[in-house]
């Protein structure tokens, strides 16, 4: 499985994703610039955290007009895995690949902490190595992570099992229904505010994020073989 990590102007967790896949998971991964127009040859795409375009206007609002976006949309529509963390999640919502939006945190501040999450849906291609209802802890680091969608959308997300992660003990940012990560209806596009790529090595404090990448690689292999 060959994975693209997109580099937008202002991306700064690009190396985090890359190294989690390359150094820790020994996966086949490449950086792809926002200037490119094609993702031919890639089986999955990941949008990193950071501050694309300085988060000016709204987080993710400008990045979605970059050259690479149509190729990402195409991957999503083709059912290939698309993953966005933090700013990547914000870009995916701004681009309409995921429902809802991410607002400024309720306390109006940037928050960098490791917090407990619940794995709500372990049936996605990204989460099969977690147990259902498992409690894990992942770092968050954002100022605009308060998930918002209207009631109808929220109900639909829950009914379709699209809520993948929830904040478990406390809600750090005011996200509605404690939502920390969601997929699209088809389940191949995952966006989440927490940073699994920051929790893949014991020396950095946690390995709770590792199984997300392992799940994807394992499921990707099965798929490629099939």
């Amino acid at each position: 499985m060959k994975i693209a990590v997109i580099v937008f102007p202002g991306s700064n967790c690009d190396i985090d994703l890359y190294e989690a896949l390359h150094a820790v998971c020994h996966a086949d991964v490449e950086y792809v610039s926002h200037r490119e127009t094609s993702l031919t040859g890639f089986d999955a795409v990941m949008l990193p955290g950071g501050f694309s375009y300085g988060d000016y206007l709204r987080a993710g609002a400008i990045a979605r007009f970059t050259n690479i976006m149509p190729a990402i949309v195409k991957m999503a529509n083709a059912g290939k895995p698309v993953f966005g963390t933090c700013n990547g999640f914000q870009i995916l919502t701004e681009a309409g690949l995921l429902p809802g939006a991410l607002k400024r945190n309720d306390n109006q501040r940037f928050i960098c902490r490791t917090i407990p999450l619940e794995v709500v849906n372990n049936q996605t291609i990204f989460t099969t190595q977690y147990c259902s209802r498992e409690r894990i802890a992942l770092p968050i680091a954002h100022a605009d992570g308060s998930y918002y969608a209207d009631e109808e959308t929220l109900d639909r997300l829950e009914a379709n099992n699209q809520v993948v992660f929830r904040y478990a003990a406390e809600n750090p940012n005011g996200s509605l229904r404690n939502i920390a990560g969601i997929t699209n209806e088809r389940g191949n596009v995952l966006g989440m505010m927490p940073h699994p790529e920051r929790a893949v090595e014991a020396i950095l404090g946690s390995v709770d994020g590792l199984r997300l990448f392992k799940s994807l690689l394992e499921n990707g292999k099965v798929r490629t073989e099939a």
Partner: protein
Amino acid sequence: MKQAMTPEEIKEQKPYLDWSLSEAEYDYIRTQLLGRLPNYTETGLFAAMWSEHCSYKKSKSVLRLFPNKNERVLQGPGEGAGVVDIDDGQAVVFKAESHNHPTTVEPYQGAATGIGGILRDIFSMGARPIASLDSLHFGELTDPLMRMKVEATVRGIGDYGNCMGIPTVAGEITFDSCYQGNLLCNAMSVGLMDQKDIQQGRAAGIGNAVMYVGAKTGRDGIHGATFASTDFSDENETQRSAVQVGDPFMEKLLLEACLDLITKHPAWLVGIQDMGAAGIVSSSAEMASEGKSGMELNLDLVPQREPHMSAYEIMLSESQERMLLCVKKGNEEDVKKIFDLYGLEAVTIGRITAGHDYVLFHDGEEVCHLPVASLTDDVLEEESMERKPARIEEAEKQSAWEPHITNIESTLADLLQQPTIADKASLYWQYDSQVRTNTVVGPGSDAGVIRIRGTKKGLAMTTDGNGRFVYLNPEVGGQMALVEAAANIIASGAQPLAITDCLNYGDPNDPEIFWELHQSVQGMADACREFNTPVISGNVSLYNENNGRAIHPTPMVGMVGLIKNIDRVIPSFVQHPSDKVYLVGK
């Protein structure tokens, strides 16, 4: 554009006094250095370049006390930042910088641009910044305005560093009424590089290009450099308007573009320097001086954000996120292409010339023609008077104070409630301390620890200082700042390598304050020799006063240590319920 005053009018009306150039200096420049009257632009350039901020004319004599070499130092003070060998062809680069005055006036932007400035010092050396630290000193929190300033300062540091994607991994925050009208905001940046990539701020090679890259020039921070060298009164707090605004997004692009150029195309580049205090003039004159070259610049080519800027304004603007490069003749277009990729401007604004003259053209006219050295090297060093303060004479006569503790529990509780001692998590949680996934120990421990990817090595780093100790006994206080930093580094499992510093004091024209400066630097220097931690970079911030009241003398030490085996790092938290607790030392 016409000069605002004729040379004769300048001589008569002495506008330079407002820019903190003294009459004696003006006369010296006129009679000894030039043998003619300097024009308006030239006078302004002298005022900026001869300010304490750029010239260290008052503190130089004291700074000579510091050791700055040892077997590991590759670059000591004098460049953008110091460089230390950490084996395997790698080097660590670090420096601290104060942004006290801008932060006092406009905490959010002042703190943000403080981070921006220190980062440019690091990447202009060819290093990638890998961590930031801060040292913040505020007034008492009982003042609601101070609470807002604390919030804004922390937000400024966070917003800039977070957006740049550089983890803030350690720091210190204290509160004391002596900082009520003059906050201290010191920032330190640590970078990592391959030794082969080390850059210098020099311009040389006749015909080579002087290129301007990054953000456009506006009227921000004009007089910033001279402003930082005069003390505050409530009155000029309201006059100030040319606030520098940080653009971390631009800086991120600038960082990536500069590192691309430096690491991939070293042959194109002769020298590089960031535009800090006193913007274009200080960077260009210092580069020419360093390369022993002449330089000619055409200011009409400088990218400008506002119309009708004078030569003086263009030269002194402190607009952020700009760099000056000296590029080999013939490679200008190649360099431009690199910056184009990041959507950044790169413009040739001048050339290296034969001889040693610094010449500026604006609107087709020559507006400045000076020997380079007159701006950078001929500064009149100032002798300062010193006097031991009476309070210290008094204190020395008294017998040592013995604390009487009646209820140890309530004393402990009282101590823990002191804002200076209390937990700072609610503040440092606003800093991304983990981005780029190398942070082994973040804020909340003795020192921050960053691993070096691809090796077993790590770097420990800390900022420490204690204005109260230094106030009570400058020499011992200076030693203690070093000891505290070294203890933090050692407790993290690292070998201390070297230090950077910010020397924050009041008005050095006050003999008692100069004495404090001298004594405390002596104490620091002695301790540096003891620990074999030379001073490889640093910064001096004088005139930290409000309405005639000086801050406590507050030298800040930023220390970096090398960890040979990162797996052995010991955190400062209790690990297991039945572990034993030992007290070691005296």
